[in-house]
């Protein structure tokens, strides 16, 4: 994608979300904030899953840990925004350590290892009740302000996280790191042979995939005011984010965020209209997607415009 149209569509997309309070009520603003949140999660996953081609399912672990670290900081009196920053840094460090160990695995084994991390985090958080409150969950101080102001505030925070993740994606894409990650995706052994430091690169991608998830998780915790282990570490969340990225187009810059927007809006429509069958319909969408749109929504351009630049 050429830089100019890329930046243009990015700015337009963010602007549409940011302007939600101007044309919609609180529910629309909330939906925009959720779009931004999932957009950030899917864009984060893209570093490891899209660029590097490692099927990571750790998203929910990073999201949940971010929520818990943020909540614990806030409860011990750290100001909210600082708590979010601490959560992001701490979880990034955790991901770097974990990545060093886990990224030795490949393919299915890496996928399993990364899912196991989510389940282990849930079990540990839930049994370490002296710190985390266990199954009781944790209450966070409620943010003061009218619902409208709050909603706008959290929309803006989620948008900042999304914008930051997209910005880093563009930077990585243009840099040696992005090139190296794509090499690893193509053929890891060959990449190592031509001098790519595969371990360092993979750890970098894995860490990047964690940092924005943690920020989103910590923000989400402050937003809802209550977190518990079951809702914070959901395997469903992890898989959803992967599906979003695939829906938009894994490995592209804007694809995952677009996929997230499409997925969240579809979910809204199904939930509102098909109470009993919404999960099945979503499943059907996934199945259809795999067969008819394997390259994601972005690949539509190519299909509809033979000869157009891909």
């Amino acid at each position, binding site marked *: 994608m050429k830089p100019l149209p890329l930046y243009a569509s990015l700015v337009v997309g963010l602007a549409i979300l940011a302007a939600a309070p101007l044309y919609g009520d609180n529910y629309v603003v909330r939906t925009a904030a959720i779009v931004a949140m999932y957009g950030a999660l899917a864009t984060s996953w893209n570093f490891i899953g899209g660029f590097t*081609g490692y*099927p990571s399912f750790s998203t929910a672990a990073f999201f949940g840990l971010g929520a818990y670290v943020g909540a614990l900081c806030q409860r011990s009196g750290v100001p909210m925004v600082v708590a979010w920053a601490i959560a992001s840094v701490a979880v990034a460090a955790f991901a770097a350590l974990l990545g060093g160990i*886990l990224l030795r*695995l490949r393919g*299915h*084994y890496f996928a399993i*290892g990364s899912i196991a991390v989510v389940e282990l985090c849930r079990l540990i958080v839930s049994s370490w009740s002296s710190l985390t409150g266990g199954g009781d969950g944790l209450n966070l101080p409620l943010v003061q302000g009218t619902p409208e102001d709050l909603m706008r505030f959290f929309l803006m925070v989620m948008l900042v996280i999304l914008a930051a993740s997209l910005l880093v994606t563009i930077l990585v894409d243009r840099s040696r790191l992005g090139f190296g990650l794509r090499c690893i995706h193509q053929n890891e052994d060959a990449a190592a042979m031509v001098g790519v430091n595969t371990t360092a690169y993979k750890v970098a991608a894995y860490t990047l995939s964690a940092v924005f998830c943690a920020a989103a998780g910590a923000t989400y915790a402050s937003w809802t005011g209550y977190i518990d282990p079951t809702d914070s570490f959901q395997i469903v969340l992890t898989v959803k984010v992967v599906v979003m990225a695939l829906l938009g187009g894994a490995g592209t810059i804007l694809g995952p965020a677009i996929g997230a927007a499409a997925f969240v809006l579809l979910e809204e429509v199904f939930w509102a209209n098909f109470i009993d069958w919404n999960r099945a319909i979503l499943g059907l969408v*996934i199945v259809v997607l*795999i067969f008819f749109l394997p390259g994601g929504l972005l690949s539509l351009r190519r299909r509809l415009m033979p000869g157009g630049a891909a």
Partner: protein
Amino acid sequence: MAIYLQTLVNGLMLGALYACLAVGFSLVWGVLNVINMLHGSFIILGGYLTYFAWHAYGIHPVIMLPVVAALMFALGFALQRGLINKVVSAPVLTTLTLTFGLDMILYNAMTYFFTATPRRITLDLGAISLGPITLPVDRLLGTGLALLLTLLLYAVMRGSSIGRAIVAVRMDRMAAELMGIRTDRIYAITFGIGALMAGAAGVVFATIFPITTNVTGIWLGKAFVVCVVGGLGSVPGALVGGLVLGLVESFAGHWFGPQQAMTAGFLLMLVLLLTRPTGLVGVKGYE
């Protein structure tokens, strides 16, 4: 001392059930290279079929076993033939996401038709006491049945031409094709066997555990752990993995309390993943 014996026996019985639950999942993973996210729902579907046959018509679960097995084989065969085969050589993410999508449909349908109310077959066969140890009869039968099914599968894999073809495809797909094996068909049969084993496990489980869609994810998680612990794609691997997991959960539950039992299982899996990705009795080349 008695408590350790009891814990050992508990662990072995649980382990045999785990092995039975995971063997089909392991086979599909090993041969097709597909992580079948439907496996947990297949087990529960088998359980529901058994429960309703028993509840509505008084059909004994043992009689239902071949019926459920045949139905589940047909379902698995058709799914693989009709859908999964078309993307079977795609990357992990594609097949995993596809089976996840299919699972959402099956899960939704089961919750819709059967509700989430936990069901139970109340056979309640009592228990046998061996000195200080208590052996629940239905768990004992379930264990026996689970072992029997697992060994039967082993015999089929070793002794029949289909089984040998499956093993051949697992070892080297290209070579198998050159030898005239129709891999598409073998894939469909393997997936069918995977579903059959899940359904059979469901029949066994229906007499021991509550049947509800709430637990599909839990059984799927156990299948993952068993496969990684034991090693992929082989019947002995699943058997060893299941027994080890059962024992670990049992003893961890006794020593560290039930809160740590599941954590211990997942930790074991993570450690084995990193140190011995082929599993305890795995085949080289599947890491």
